[in-house]
């Protein structure tokens, strides 16, 4: 034991064990950026953006989504600084909202994230594997590969490959944190390198070169002399309308697509208990991830528009998604291969996209697992769900359970036309976030004894507690995106039948809580105590 002064600091420390916080700002940034899934953002923005929102400025939509997500992150930063513990919105909600609501919004949130695990697996096949097989088949004149590219997006192969990806995620998570981190480290590093490769490829290309190459490859395959122009002309004939001007409404609506992956930038709220210098680290980690992803997307969008042509991307996407006109695969991975006439570039860029999309799956899967284990600890879920494998030290029951939920969602997504057309659960998740951010506005007033311990307790903005202002801004931003999603039938919308799904998840959450509460009561356990602060008499 030795007592030491820490230089100019007015504190005397002794040597004592017990680390509490470990992850720093850079670590938090990497964690969040991985969960933003930069590649998934590029793929979805470039596929759906020009196709369904003609005239929507991709650059401004990305900036709009980035700005809104930064405000949401600001609100969550004040939450996680005030309650720096792992568990995400479940922890925050349980400190101010009734336990039934806290559990329900947590269930709604993880239902959405698990659903998006299935969507990511679906996109890996649709936007990664299939285009790569198809284009390599074109370039090498291998009909088998071309057919394989079409075959993998048939329902059963798609379901089987997607389920295999989701199962792989479960196996990796169940194998232990160390193995999971090793896999993610490799995947993240390769994805970054391959994204840089994509940017370099685009920087070196030109629209003239792309048009020439595209026509020379696709002309013989489609039996058309100028397929590039034919794609555009047929899209216009079939209803894709763009007058060449920027449309502000379309810009607003298309921002749903960059916003969707950007939600990952706030996922470090799930590991708040493991982050040191929580205010600085979470600020750098969340806002850094938002900024970095936004900048990369803006660069790629500008380059893609310049090289491939906005009109062509929109037309090709529209034709494919609507099943009309001259159909070619519009994915960026394939077009990068066309630009370079290189099967290798096509494969590498596709791998980059696949790896980015993969980053989402175990990351979101873990989010769900952590929440379920937390419920189990609080006895609002079956005790078995929190059981830890003595061999692997992982919550295997929760991992396997959520893995089957993922596969079930995959099944619904592939085989049900109803579910294949929705990503409406994102609305439920944004609404859940909105509720917690809204509650944060009042937290300093309703829980002053907790808030006064927060490092931001004395900071004011316009005479109001910083948390109140930050959460108000986050609430407005999350409400803005709730209504943006509501107004966009492509990204989410408000089809009454689909809204029933959102309502159904909320109802299931409430029913689950009250069923568990009654069960525990019969066992002599008051689950509400797990949510309450012990009063000091």
């Amino acid at each position, binding site marked *: 034991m030795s007592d030491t002064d820490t230089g100019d600091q007015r504190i005397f420390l002794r040597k004592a*064990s017990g680390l509490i916080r470990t992850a720093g700002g850079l670590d938090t940034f990497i964690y969040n950026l991985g969960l933003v899934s930069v590649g998934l953002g590029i793929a979805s923005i470039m596929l759906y953006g020009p196709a369904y929102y003609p005239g929507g400025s991709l650059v401004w939509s990305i900036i709009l989504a980035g700005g809104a997500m930064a405000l949401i992150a600001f609100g969550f930063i004040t939450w996680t600084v005030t309650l720096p513990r792992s568990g995400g919105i479940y922890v925050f909600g349980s400190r101010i909202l009734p336990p039934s609501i806290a559990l329900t919004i947590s269930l709604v949130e993880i239902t959405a994230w698990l659903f998006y695990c299935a969507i990511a697996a679906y996109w890996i096949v649709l936007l990664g594997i299939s285009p790569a097989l198809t284009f390599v088949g074109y370039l090498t004149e291998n009909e088998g590969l071309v057919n394989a590219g079409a075959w993998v997006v048939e329902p059963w192969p798609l379901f089987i490959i997607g389920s295999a990806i989701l199962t792989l995620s479960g196996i990796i998570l169940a194998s232990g944190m160390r193995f999971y981190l090793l896999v993610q480290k490799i995947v993240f590093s390769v994805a970054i390198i391959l994204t840089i490769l994509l940017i370099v490829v685009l920087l070196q290309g030109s629209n003239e070169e792309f048009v020439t190459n595209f026509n020379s490859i696709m002309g013989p395959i489609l039996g058309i002399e100028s397929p590039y122009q034919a794609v555009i002309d047929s899209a216009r004939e079939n209803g894709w309308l763009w007058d060449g001007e920027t449309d502000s409404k379309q810009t607003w609506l298309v921002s749903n697509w960059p916003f969707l992956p950007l939600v990952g930038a706030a996922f470090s709220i799930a590991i708040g208990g493991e982050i040191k210098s929580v205010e600085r680290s979470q600020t750098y980690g969340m806002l850094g991830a938002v900024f970095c992803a936004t900048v990369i997307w803006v660069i790629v969008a500008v380059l893609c528009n310049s090289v491939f042509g906005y009109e062509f991307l929109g037309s090709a996407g529209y034709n494919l998604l609507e099943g009309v006109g001259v159909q070619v695969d519009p994915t960026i991975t394939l077009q990068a291969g066309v630009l370079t006439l290189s099967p290798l570039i096509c494969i590498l860029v596709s791998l980059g996209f696949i790896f980015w999309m993969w980053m989402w799956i175990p990351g979101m899967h873990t989010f769900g697992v952590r929440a379920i284990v937390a419920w189990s600890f609080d006895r609002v879920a079956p005790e078995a769900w929190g059981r830890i494998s003595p061999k692997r030290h992982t919550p295997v029951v929760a991992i396997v359970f959520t893995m089957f939920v993922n596969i079930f969602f995959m099944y619904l997504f592939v085989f049900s036309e109803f579910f294949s057309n929705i990503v409406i659960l994102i609305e439920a998740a944004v609404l859940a976030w909105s509720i917690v951010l809204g509650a944060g506005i009042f937290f300093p007033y309703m829980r002053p004894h907790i808030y006064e311990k927060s490092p931001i307790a004395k900071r004011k903005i316009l005479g109001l507690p910083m948390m109140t202002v930050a959460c108000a801004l986050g609430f407005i931003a999350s409400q803005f995106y709730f209504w943006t999603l509501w107004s966009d039938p492509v990204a989410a919308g408000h089809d009454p039948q689909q809204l029933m799904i959102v309502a159904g998840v909320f109802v299931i959450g409430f029913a689950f809580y009250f069923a568990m509460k009654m069960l525990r009561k019969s066992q002599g356990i008051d689950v509400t105590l797990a949510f309450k602060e012990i009063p000091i008499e």
Partner: protein
Amino acid sequence: MFWKKKGKDGGGDALTIFFASDLHGSTVCFKKFVNAAKFYGANVLVMGGDSTGKAVLPIAKQTDGTYLAFELGSTVTLSTKAEVDEYSERSSNKGFYPIVVTEDEFQELKTDPDKQHQLFKRLVVDRVAEWCDYAGQKLKDTGIPLITSPGNDDFFEIDDVLSNAPCVHYHEMEVTEVNGYEMLHCGGSTITPWDTEREYSEEEYKTKFDELAAKVTNMERCIYNVHVPPYGTVLDTCPMLDKDLKVVFEMGNPVSQNAGSKSLTDSIEKHQPLLGIHGHIHEGRGKINIGRTVCVNPGSVYPEGILQGALITVKGSKVKGVNLTQG
């Protein structure tokens, strides 16, 4: 329920234990701990080791009447007595030891490690004494015992204070009887990189566990109150440190290692006690089974003023429920 066989748990009245550990000087956590008995309806309070904190905060009075102190990584100026009192309370709740000194005294302490050391011990002993007084007031006439054992960070000087306090049952390296159950008390920890107060090698622990286990008459109703958790479990998983005692990261996540006791794991596997209650690893919050033995580490987030605990109900030779709490 009529189909449930009766008597499999060995009978006897249920015992509800509230267990928390690693409060590290946090006064608000200790007060919550004492009040937890009534709040959660516990019959017995068990405080794992590491009651003592890690830092002294000198509040240095300046010639102009203000005070210089340290908070959140920087020097702060306190202008009034009320501000000093508020700062002191806030710091105490986080587990620090604030003390008002003159600037000259601060400068002298700064350059004299021995004086710092003595000051540390005095403040730690004073804090433990205050806690004992508080527990005495609150638990008097309730019949609820407060049982505690030392952790590796605890100065030996607190032993006398705890041993002489009414309502506090301080036990170390012994087996005692608690409401019809046997409790095996073993504090300290395995060797740490910080060279703390009470550390034992695995060989020493093996000897101690062998000796203590031999005193237990019925392992089916025995509770291991052991500060260090069993090795190779989620209860002892903590961040890996490099040679400079900095956490090793991979992909933004801390790399994990195990820091528990292999001798304890062996003892639990061999003797299969009813329950193991542990602390030491703040990040190791969880509940596991080693054979029939249920082992629990409630973890600790004491700087936030939030008390993490475990509400455990045992009946006969069964653990009927474990509820991890955050209050």
